[in-house]
């Protein structure tokens, strides 16, 4: 069962533009929603994360918007730069229920290309 669905699969934007990636989840017990950035040949690295008690979180050019009632969240990259070209994964987890620790359920990923 796919619990986190991510779109689009790929995205091309011009330098200076806004990149928007969307995710939808099914499990209402999820309480932590991180976004990871992955460059080729590297492991994913945490970019920004949000909890469901807030609707938006901003860190520099990166913003997460969260809609609890719709079970959706999105990543906005403002003033996109060529160095932002990477694969982005949304994820979700719920802490400490049973014995699963904070295992992450990932979306399928979005390959972002920012053209100069």
């Amino acid at each position, binding site marked *: 069962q796919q619990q986190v669905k991510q779109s689009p699969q790929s995205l091309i934007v011009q330098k200076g533009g806004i990149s928007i990636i969307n995710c939808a989840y099914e499990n209402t017990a999820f309480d932590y929603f991180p976004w990871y950035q992955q460059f080729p040949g590297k492991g994913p690295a945490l970019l920004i994360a949000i909890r469901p008690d807030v609707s938006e979180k901003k860190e520099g050019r990166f913003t997460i918007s969260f809609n609890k009632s719709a079970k959706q969240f999105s990543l906005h990259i403002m003033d996109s730069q060529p160095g932002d070209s990477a694969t982005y994964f949304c994820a979700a987890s719920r802490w400490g229920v049973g014995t699963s620790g*904070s295992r992450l359920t990932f979306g399928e990923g979005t390959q972002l290309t920012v053209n100069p």
Partner: protein
Amino acid sequence: GAGVSQSPSNKVTEKGKDVELRCDPISGHTALYWYRQSLGQGLEFLIYFQGNSAPDKSGLPSDRFSAERTGGSVSTLTIQRTQQEDSAVYLCASTAGTGTQETQYFGPGTRLLVL
């Protein structure tokens, strides 16, 4: 070390052979996770360790897959009788295990190719 390390970085093997993948978590991190990333796919959870115990093995795809952790540090993922569908990047992540929601720090992965 400063980050999570994994070895080997690349592994090519023949169908039917056994392989061992190693993960060295960040020093002091008690929680360790293994994930698998197939080509063009998201990351799929395999197993979770807290200390040397594995309370959640629910993501292991078959009994050919096993993992252990010793000394609360290094973990080894073993795949027996490898199949071509096992070809993927195997990623390891660790957290401090403080009992709250924490950032997972990933290693660079082991790229496994089964011929």
